[in-house]
């Protein structure tokens, strides 16, 4: 069982939201689509669900074209941003919805609802009104609702986007376990690289409607394809086609990197200082793990560990 997207294009008038995107999702694989807002990742997801008509390209499931298939016949589950729970139904009513549409009998509905609610850790929540749930609980209901009819593919559109950071970090771990337990293929859209790295079997970075890079998360992390991907992943020091990790610097009298500290930020176990290098050179972010950390205005001389310098490569590029 596999999803294939070939040369997908989605246009709104003159705007091309998705531009010739290829995507493959293998059985039980979780593919994360990572990119800044407006890069077309949500549109890609909606096109897979059948909610946006493609302007060109093919979407197939096990070789069968989904082009003429209406959203409600695609067997695709979707977790929406802000969840889109039905306000007029309680938790059980939301979760049972897809089962009712599939004509599952009442007893089986009950069993499946209980089962899925247990899976997401909401046993006994069936009769609660969705308006009374916390954000995290609503997220779980949305997930349970999408999973209940056993979709062949699960689409998740920034499902944790509206939650606070601590909850997000906890739920992302749970979500990964849940997806594995449910044994479902999934496409997960997010702008948060931490979420993407925590969840993905395979990563697709999008920029302006196109795929900027794809590959295993560790491959993308260790070898960003270009400056855009590097910066999007949080690497601040991109100089002359190379990424310099903030950890690569250490104080050394004879070092090559000389400059003045222009700012200092506390990061819990270390400081990050920004160093304006001499001769109008680039401003570099340096993880200062030594004591005492350099103060703002202080001149520093640093040596560079070659292991911390990564050339931007097209190795993992699409």
């Amino acid at each position, binding site marked *: 069982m596999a999803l294939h997207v070939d040369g997908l294009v989605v246009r709104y008038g003159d705007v091309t939201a998705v531009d010739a995107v290829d995507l493959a999702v293998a059985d039980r694989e979780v593919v994360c689509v990572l990119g800044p807002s407006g890069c077309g990742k949500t549109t890609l997801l*909606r096109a897979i*669900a*059948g*909610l946006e*008509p493609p302007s060109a390209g093919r979407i197939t499931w096990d070789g069968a074209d989904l*082009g*003429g*298939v*209406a*959203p*409600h*016949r*695609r*067997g*695709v*589950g*979707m977790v*929406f941003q*802000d969840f*889109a729970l*039905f*306000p*007029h*139904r*309680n938790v059980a*009513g939301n979760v049972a*919805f*897809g089962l009712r*549409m*599939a004509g599952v009998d009442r007893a089986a509905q009950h069993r499946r609802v209980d089962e899925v609610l247990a899976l997401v850790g909401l046993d006994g929540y069936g*009769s609660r*009104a969705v*308006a009374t749930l916390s954000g995290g609980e609503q997220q779980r209901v949305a997930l349970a*609702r*999408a999973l209940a*009819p056993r979709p062949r593919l699960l*689409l998740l559109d920034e499902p944790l986007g509206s939650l606070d950071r601590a909850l997000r970090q906890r739920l992302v771990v749970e979500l990964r376990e849940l997806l594995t337990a449910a044994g479902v293929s999934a496409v997960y859209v997010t702008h948060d690289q931490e979420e993407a790295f925590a969840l993905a079997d395979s990563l697709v970075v999008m920029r302006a409607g196109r795929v900027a890079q794809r590959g295993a998360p560790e491959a993308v992390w260790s070898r960003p394809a270009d400056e855009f991907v590097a910066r999007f992943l949080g690497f601040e020091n991109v100089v002359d086609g190379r990424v310099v990790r903030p950890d690569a610097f250490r104080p050394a009298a004879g070092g090559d990197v000389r400059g003045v500290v222009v700012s200092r930020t506390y990061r819990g176990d270390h400081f990050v200082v920004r160093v304006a290098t001499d001769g109008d050179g680039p401003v570099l972010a340096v993880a200062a793990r030594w004591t005492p950390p350099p103060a703002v205005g202080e001149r520093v001389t640093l040596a560079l560990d070659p292991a911390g310098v990564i050339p931007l490569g097209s190795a993992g590029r699409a």
Partner: protein
Amino acid sequence: MGSTGDRRRRAALVAAAGLVPAAFLAVFFVLPVGTIVGMGFHPGALVDVAGSARLRGIAWFTLWQAVVSTVLTFVVALPAAAIVARYEFPGRRLLRAAVTIPFVLPSVVVASAFEALGLSHGLVAILAAHVFFESAIVVRIVGGFWSNLDPRQEEAARLLGAGRLRAFLEVTLPRLAPALLSAAALVFLFTFSSFGIVLILGAPHYATLEVEIYRQTAQLLDLRVAAALTIVQMAAVLALLLVQRALSDRVSGEQRLRAGTDVARRPRTVRERAGVATVAGATALVLGGPLAVLVVRSFSPGGGVGLGYYRALSTSRRGSILFVPPWEAVANSLGFAVVATVVALAVGVPAAAVIARRRGGATRLFDSLLMLPLGTSAVTIGFGFLVALDERPLDLRGSPWLIPLAHALVAAPFVVRVLVPVLRSVDERLREAAATLGASPWRAWREIDLPIAARGALVAAGFAFAVSLGEFGATVFVARPDYPTLPVAIFRFLGQPGDLNAGQAAALSTILMAVTVGAVLAIDRFRAGELGEF
């Protein structure tokens, strides 16, 4: 959505849903009105009307009294809408229900109540009765919409440095604009087409186009001039509707429904409490006063206290203006109201679904067409029914079915008006979520839009029921003497001299009021009962 084939299927579905209201309109609106216009469209008639200074004066009066009535109505009703939407206070539910009552009362009752108050015939009486009548629309539409607005937006504006008034003007007012415009359009249309009030309280000096059409047809028997006036009236209404559509298009920011959450709070400061109490008290006095006078009158036979007028209702007196005991009018009215409500919903629900889903020019035209009966003179509709529905295959002449059909025609636009904003407020993503869970577009509508709209539909049904109970202008033409409705019976009694006739009119009015209040309270109970579990 998905493919062009699917889109075509959906378009077919929407078109099919539009067929019921379209067919209903064609048979029971276009045909009767077309017949009247055809009957009287002599080349000279329009010239005659345009050349008559008296008729030009009537047209001008119709226009400016509607403007003044609308402005005065907003002055009186906006504060009431504000407190009902924003504040929790003792008697709030009662007030919310009570403001609907004057609106659904028959105009003849309101007119007689204002006569009983001692207001002499003339402009002041007409305007006062209009404000009394139409305030309900403003409180219902604006208040209901207002209570769904998130008060935190206004709070955000306050924190950004806007004063109370500034925050209202810059944040709340623009968001209220669709409701304000929609309410203003309705109030204007109703007062523009005012019939019963002006007929009774304006006599003999003031007349609207409506009243003049009635006089020309019923008293002067000049169908040619009546038809010409009808054309003028309908042209004006059409123009108004086009203006209203253009306005509402410009402000059609979609409002999210905050399902089930009541944002009202208790007034906190002394000033707030005083303000709420003043507005609530003044509203109660303005709306309750005339009705209280009417009720007292009904229990005061011959100047004493007793049930004499009510007892008289069960007997068919010799020489009475009704052929049946007046009590039967109560049963007739209730039966007609049930049928009219069912028909109005059968027509209005699919129409609202079509209008809410599609925004093309054809839909807008359809929308305006559906609103037309609302602005068309009830007299025209009633008379049109009589002259058009008397041939095979639709020979309904003398059939009691004419009454609920006319009522449904008048009520259907209300149903549409109530439902469209509710249906539009349903988040598109809810439908998409339903689709990804296996619901076809039709199933998604049934599962998502319909239940969420159910509350709106209940309110719409209540309106249709109340409109039917109180409908007068069309009924007076199609009601047969052996099937009188309550308003017709009241009108007949009011037209006769003598204390007993006036007393019976007051008694019947009180009964009608009680039935209406009951219906409205029942609706409000449903509204307050939230959506519950399905």
